């Protein structure tokens, strides 16, 4: 079918993107000021000591050889050893990434659950008090930084009212979802604010379309008209925005994890940057870049599924 051909084409198109990501990450880390040996040994290190460390890390080799080594290890699934912690990077990331991914996915689900009903409510009650109040609330939500919102939740709902835990992961599926609720909500609200605004506008536009009148003239129930005809067409323009913001949400997750002291990759990344722990920075950046690329691919595939005109 046409759709699966499109899927294949879209996957092939992303191959150069991944190649470029690899090169950029390798170069960017090496353009950071300072070098790992000085970072490890401090200001008073002797030149001999620095040279010895550089030789053992391979950072004294020409840049092209360093890249080939980097690439070779990458292809065998080896992201190297953390220079600070002396543990394989894959192990470090493997322990923490699930928490970050879960947090991001949780936030995504919450954002969807918040924005679709709210966008419909706001569109159907356009310019009425409900719509105006929600628009105001979203304006406020959008202008509030994620870390501040997180701290607010933590203080009010966590410390004062004691409705939610202030940190940690909890046990079992329910416990984890309960413990992650506040951080996920913190992340979700910013995303939901953007998505709801866009979806509300899209719904209002679609509601004016002739095909909605035709759908009503056919005697379809309002549930079918809104749920199938309006939602699907309104989502087409919003899905791309959702994808882009989801990419940013991964970045936001790092900050939120720190605020809520969650054992995700956030802390790891920050420590690695301060310690010039090249392999860890490279590994994490690689993971984030690949993740964001996958999100964009999935977004495109979902959009094409919603709107077959994209691939025909």
């Amino acid at each position: 079918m046409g759709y699966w051909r499109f899927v294949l084409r879209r996957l092939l198109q992303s191959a150069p993107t991944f190649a470029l990501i690899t090169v950029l990450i390798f170069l960017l880390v090496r353009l950071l000021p300072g070098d790992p040996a000085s970072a490890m040994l401090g200001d008073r290190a002797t030149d001999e000591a620095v040279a010895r460390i550089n030789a053992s890390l391979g950072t004294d080799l020409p840049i092209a050889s360093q890249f080939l080594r980097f690439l070779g290890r990458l292809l065998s699934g080896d992201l190297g050893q953390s220079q600070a912690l002396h543990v394989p990077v894959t192990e470090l990331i493997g322990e923490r990434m699930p928490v970050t991914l879960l947090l991001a996915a949780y936030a995504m689900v919450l954002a969807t659950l918040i924005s679709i009903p709210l966008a419909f409510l706001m569109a159907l009650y356009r310019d009425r008090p409900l719509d105006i109040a929600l628009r105001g609330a979203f304006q406020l939500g959008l202008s509030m930084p994620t870390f501040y919102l997180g701290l607010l939740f933590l203080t009010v709902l966590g410390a004062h009212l004691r409705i939610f835990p202030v940190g940690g992961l909890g046990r079992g599926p329910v416990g984890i979802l309960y413990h992650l609720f506040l951080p996920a909500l913190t992340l979700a609200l910013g995303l939901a604010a953007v998505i709801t605004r866009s979806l509300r506008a899209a719904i209002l536009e679609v509601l004016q379309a002739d095909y909605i009148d035709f759908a009503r003239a056919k005697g379809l129930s309002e549930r079918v008209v809104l749920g199938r005809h309006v939602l699907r067409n309104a989502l087409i323009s919003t899905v791309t925005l959702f994808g882009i913001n989801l990419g940013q949400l991964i970045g936001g997750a790092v900050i939120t994890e720190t605020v809520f002291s969650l054992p995700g990759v956030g802390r790891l990344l920050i420590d690695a940057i301060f310690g010039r722990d090249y392999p860890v920075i490279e590994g994490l950046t690689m993971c984030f870049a690949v993740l964001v690329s996958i999100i964009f691919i999935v977004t495109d595939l979902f959009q094409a599924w919603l709107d077959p005109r994209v691939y025909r």
Partner: protein
Amino acid sequence: MTENLLEVHGLRTEYRSDGRRFTAVDGIDFTVGPGEILGLVGESGSGKSATLRSILGLIKPPGRVEGRILWRGRDIHGLAPSALQRVRGAEIAMIFQDPMTALNPVLTVGQQIRESLAAHTDLSASDRQRRAIELLDLVGIPAAASRLDDYPYQFSGGIRQRAMIAIALAAKPALLLADEPTTALDVTIQDQIIKLIQRLAAELRMSVILVTHDLGVVAESCDRVAVMYAGRIVETAPVATLFRSPRHAYTLGLLQSMPVGRSPRTPLPFIPGAPPRPGDSLNGCAFAARCAFVGDECRHGRPETRHVGLDHMTLCRRAEALPAALEPA
């Protein structure tokens, strides 16, 4: 006389924009009998489409509809949504001007037929599929079975309009409201679609209200015709009567400006001026300012319906001043 299928009494439709009210339909009465094709003609903005939309309850707030809309004797104006849904599509269906914008672009034609069937019938999924193929076949779409999974944009204009008709007819309505169904189509296709609607009306014993601004289409396909001007029906008559002896100065003007049967390169008569804009306050006949037969009595008071022959009504107070019959062109 047979029982009327649809009777509309005192229909008034208002739109609201920027706090101002615009009267799109200004108190009209008309009927549609079983199997009858009623032509509703008039220029853009005369209230034809608003009339059709009002019948099906498609006027959205802050727009407002008043009057009685009797379907088989029952007033369907202001019905609860669930009751209205049982009328829409199943009893009265509607097709729109431009099938490109009136068909959902992201659903296949098959899906759009099947959802109508699901809403109005108890057919199983496989029966719905079979019926969808029958419907595409009925409206003359070649290789019907293979087109069900196509999206509207994959059809040509004429086929797309046929598909919209098939979707509208899915639940076997007794009345089809056709809102300028040929305006968006190539001239060569227009005639095919009109002939299709005529054939379906006869085969399915279905009534039609055909909105158009093309008098040629009316002459060819309608039983009766109602002429609209500035939100009112200014004249109603059987088609032959109306074309032979129009009793409203506006109808006369329309008929005289038809190019049919004229020798080429002769200037076409036209009606000077422009219709009043919606929201203009009117005193007297809305057509008075453009009328060649205008008299003092036309300039004040609201014109009332007059019977000027069998099944022949006009709002024109100067009907007697018009030529008794149009000489054949």
